[in-house]
């Protein structure tokens, strides 16, 4: 058992790093977003950059698009992960064990690996269209549907699903394994059907883990830059790409506005996470009281 002193000592490197790097950067961003930027002679605190951002139609449209897209990707990942976790949990033999090991693999691989793989496979000059043309199933590669840099952002969604479905599986399997059949047996004995057991017992018990995985996936999808930059459609760019493009233009007078956009993006992600946590506590399963 760790003593309090030992715990504090062990956590201190991370805490110091977090306080100095993250918190100081965060405070600097807030201060800049409020118009205090002495480098450019700006020394008056004001909300005008926030007001400008919130009146910017492009920013609002991009934010809504990013929100819908992040919600869809995270939702699909949770649904797919839940279904596969339930299948894997029922397969107790070597196939199930192999499936679970396989599911852990994509969690370990970096996004860039998947991005490059998708570009190699699914772009119109990629391996799959070439193979289909070779087999005579396509007249030419230009007839292959646009899945990368496409307006519907399918390439980005596929990349996220590749990483996030396994993440949901791993998160849920840990809970499902601890539940084993104990509570299902109670439900069965009290007369519940298999569907009722799933709906009234299993689902509420994994609900907190499922929604936690949703929050992590949603927050990542909402704020990630490299995947939408490489696989997204430039005409329908997502919020992180929009903000970063703004930032790299190098106009220092725009820095308070850029930082206000950045803070708004972070604030929105935190608010969404808070809303989902609030919802999770009020849904069946919100009170598990330390599962025994």
């Amino acid at each position, binding site marked *: 058992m760790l003593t309090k002193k030992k715990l504090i000592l062990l956590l201190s490197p991370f805490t110091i790093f977090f306080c100095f790097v993250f918190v100081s950067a965060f405070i600097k961003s807030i201060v800049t977003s409020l118009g205090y930027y002495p480098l450019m002679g700006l020394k008056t605190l004001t909300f005008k950059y926030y007001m400008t951002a919130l009146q910017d139609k492009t920013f609002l449209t991009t934010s809504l698009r990013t929100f819908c897209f992040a919600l869809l990707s995270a939702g699909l990942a949770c649904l797919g992960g839940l279904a596969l976790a339930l299948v894997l949990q029922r397969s107790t033999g070597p196939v199930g064990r192999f499936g679970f090991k396989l599911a852990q693999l994509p969690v370990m691989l970096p996004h860039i690996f998947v991005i490059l793989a998708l570009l190699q496979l699914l772009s119109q000059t990629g391996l799959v269209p070439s193979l289909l043309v070779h087999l005579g199933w396509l007249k030419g590669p230009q007839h292959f549907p646009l899945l990368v840099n496409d307006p519907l952002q399918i390439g980005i969604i596929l990349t996220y699903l590749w990483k996030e479905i396994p993440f949901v599986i791993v998160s849920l399997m840990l809970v499902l394994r601890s539940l084993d059949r*104990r*509570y299902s*047996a*109670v*439900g*069965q*004995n*009290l*007369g*519940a*059907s298999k569907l*009722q057991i799933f709906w*009234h*017992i299993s689902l*509420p*018990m994994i609900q907190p883990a499922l929604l936690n995985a949703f929050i992590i996936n949603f927050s990542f999808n909402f704020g990630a830059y490299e995947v939408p930059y490489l696989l997204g459609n430039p005409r329908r760019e997502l919020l992180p790409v929009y903000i970063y493009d703004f930032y790299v233009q190098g106009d220092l007078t725009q820095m308070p506005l850029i930082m206000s956009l950045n803070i708004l993006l972070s604030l929105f992600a935190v608010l969404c996470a808070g809303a989902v946590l609030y919802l999770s506590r009020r849904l*069946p*399963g*919100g*009170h*598990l*009281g*330390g*599962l*025994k």
Partner: protein
Amino acid sequence: MAYYLEKISQTKGHQEILKQIDLKIEENEVFAILGPSGGGKTTLLNILAQIDQPTSGRFYGDNDAQPKGILVFQDYRLFPHMTVVQNITFGLKMRHIPKKARLARAAEIMKTMGISDLAKRYPDELSGGQQQRVALARALILKPKLVLMDEPFSSLDEGLRLEMLNFVKQLQQQFQLTIIFVTHYKNEAYLLSNQVAILIDGTVMQLDEPAHLEQAPANLAVAEFLGQANFIPGTWIDKTIKTAIYQGPVTWHTAKKPVTPTLYIPFAQFLQLTVSDYPAFKAQVLDHRWIGNLERVTLQVGTTVLSVNLPPNAVTTGESYDFYFKQLPVVY
């Protein structure tokens, strides 16, 4: 309605967990299945609760081809995400009973159980005794004819155990229940039931009344499980036994004469200081300790040490006494 277990066997992998179990349980009876851990007790209950299927054999009632007992689990297994009232009404909800009727029945059963004030609490906010009452209410609200209880009192402390034991007896009479319960505490079995089946290694070794179980265990496994006895190894000399403490005539309860006899001397009701027709041995008293109405006396005969229960102040430490068997001693 009586219930019958007919040649019930259960095999998992290569392990035979239950072997040809035959039992008859009378209506409105409290029937105890007593045995050590890993003896197949829980597997048998799961079969009677239709959570598990036997490999062979069947369980049926006089008027019911497939009776299903409602099981009260050892760890209660209250759903942690549901309040007390939600736990209790779960079975009715699954049967699509309207909410108003569910709540009315829950109010009734909670009043009987003395847990009306706990309705809105969650299981982690309840004590062990309260959890057990909720688990019982969750079963009884379904008005079952057969209630199964898996080690019902093992998680409770001594005082609460006796209280719950009496409470279960009272419920059994009030609701006219047939209760089958499994335990590895013989005192629980004796206090709650007039018929006790001893289940060891998947086999019912003995079915008897508590007093007779203690006086005449069917075999060495039962005697060893019941404990509270001395087991002295011996050898046959013609028709008598020779052990380190006793040489003389003996009897046995097993079908065949044991090949390597073990003299069975229970702590209670087997040895006395009063002269009888069955002289046992002369022993020195090493120690005597108060255990309620009796004293647990430690004796030494040669190099063998054994224990017996005697009336208080019957012996003095350091003194030697002649002991007598109350009846012809038993070997296994």
